[in-house]
């Protein structure tokens, strides 16, 4: 018997607290698998954010810390600058954390070209606090704070973070991926691996935006949530690579 798929050693034995069908679990697994494949579990420090993923330090089998709300890129910057260059530093942030209170930190970390990897989980809503509107909430989407649906006149338009950060010269690699079916999960893993390789090559800031579901606060079943990602989120948040700096040659 050949083992086709088994749980990665990049995850601890802790069971996650996420709701049934939450794609945080898939994204955790992808990051952990990539760290295992890069043989980097002993040399990586992750920064958990505030939000549903606040307890991520229980689940990743590498060194972890946890930052104040939105400040994960600032903490990662500090880690990057005090640790030896062969270490990998990543942040794992949701859209409420990264795109709202943490917008200044992420923009300036990208502008400085900090050599860190950011895993940005975009589910278009605040999950942990009970389904309030996030900066990434789609127009017309009903949340606890937009019961009539988000309106552009009252609440403004959703922010496309990947496109925005791709305009900064400091950003080396920006890609948006999704988790709504097995093919896109594999593509997401490839993108996450690439972002860590870019960090290992010291090319600078890399961010992978992962479209994720929140079946509890969207009021859908886990399966319907994945269909909602495909039908509603991807048209507004198109998948693809938004920034890719040419590879640094061997002379560097």
């Amino acid at each position: 018997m050949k083992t086709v798929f088994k749980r990665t050693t990049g995850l601890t034995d802790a069971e996650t607290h996420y709701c049934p069908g939450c794609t945080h679990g898939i994204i955790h697994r992808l990051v952990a698998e990539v760290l295992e494949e890069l043989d980097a579990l002993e040399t990586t420090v992750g920064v958990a954010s505030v939000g549903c993923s606040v307890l991520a330090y229980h689940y990743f089998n590498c060194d972890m810390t946890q930052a104040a709300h939105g400040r994960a890129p600032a903490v990662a910057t500090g880690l990057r600058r005090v640790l030896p260059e062969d270490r990998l530093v990543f942040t794992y942030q949701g859209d409420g954390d990264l795109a709202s209170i943490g917008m200044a930190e992420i923009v300036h970390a990208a502008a400085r070209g900090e050599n860190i990897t950011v895993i940005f989980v975009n589910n278009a809503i605040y999950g942990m606090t009970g389904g309030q509107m996030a900066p990434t909430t789609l127009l017309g989407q009903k949340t606890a704070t937009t019961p009539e649906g988000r309106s552009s006149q009252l609440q403004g338009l959703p922010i496309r973070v990947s496109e925005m950060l791709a305009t900064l010269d400091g950003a080396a690699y920006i890609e948006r991926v999704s988790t709504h079916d097995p093919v896109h999960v594999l593509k997401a893993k490839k993108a996450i691996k690439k972002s860590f390789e870019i960090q290992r090559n010291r090319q600078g800031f890399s961010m992978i935006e992962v479209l994720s579901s929140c079946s509890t606060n969207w009021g859908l079943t886990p399966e319907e949530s994945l269909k909602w990602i495909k039908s509603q989120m991807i048209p507004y948040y198109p998948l693809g690579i938004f920034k890719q700096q040419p590879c640094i040659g061997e002379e560097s």
Partner: protein
Amino acid sequence: MKVLFNEGWCKGCGLCIAFCPQEIIHLAEHLNRKGYRPAQVVDQDKCTSCAACARMCPDTVITVYRPDRKQTAVS
């Protein structure tokens, strides 16, 4: 046994059921220790070891095996 479910970890979300091309995964009639109906496969012979279920499982409940070709020929 081609596909093994760590029943106690399952939250019964059904994503494995949604993506199984063979449609052989079902929720069990009993409850696990968390109080969910865990996913299970009764008809293991129909499994093609594609691992689509395992890749979509948010809780890494599923381990997938593929029999060696010789064993398949014999069985």
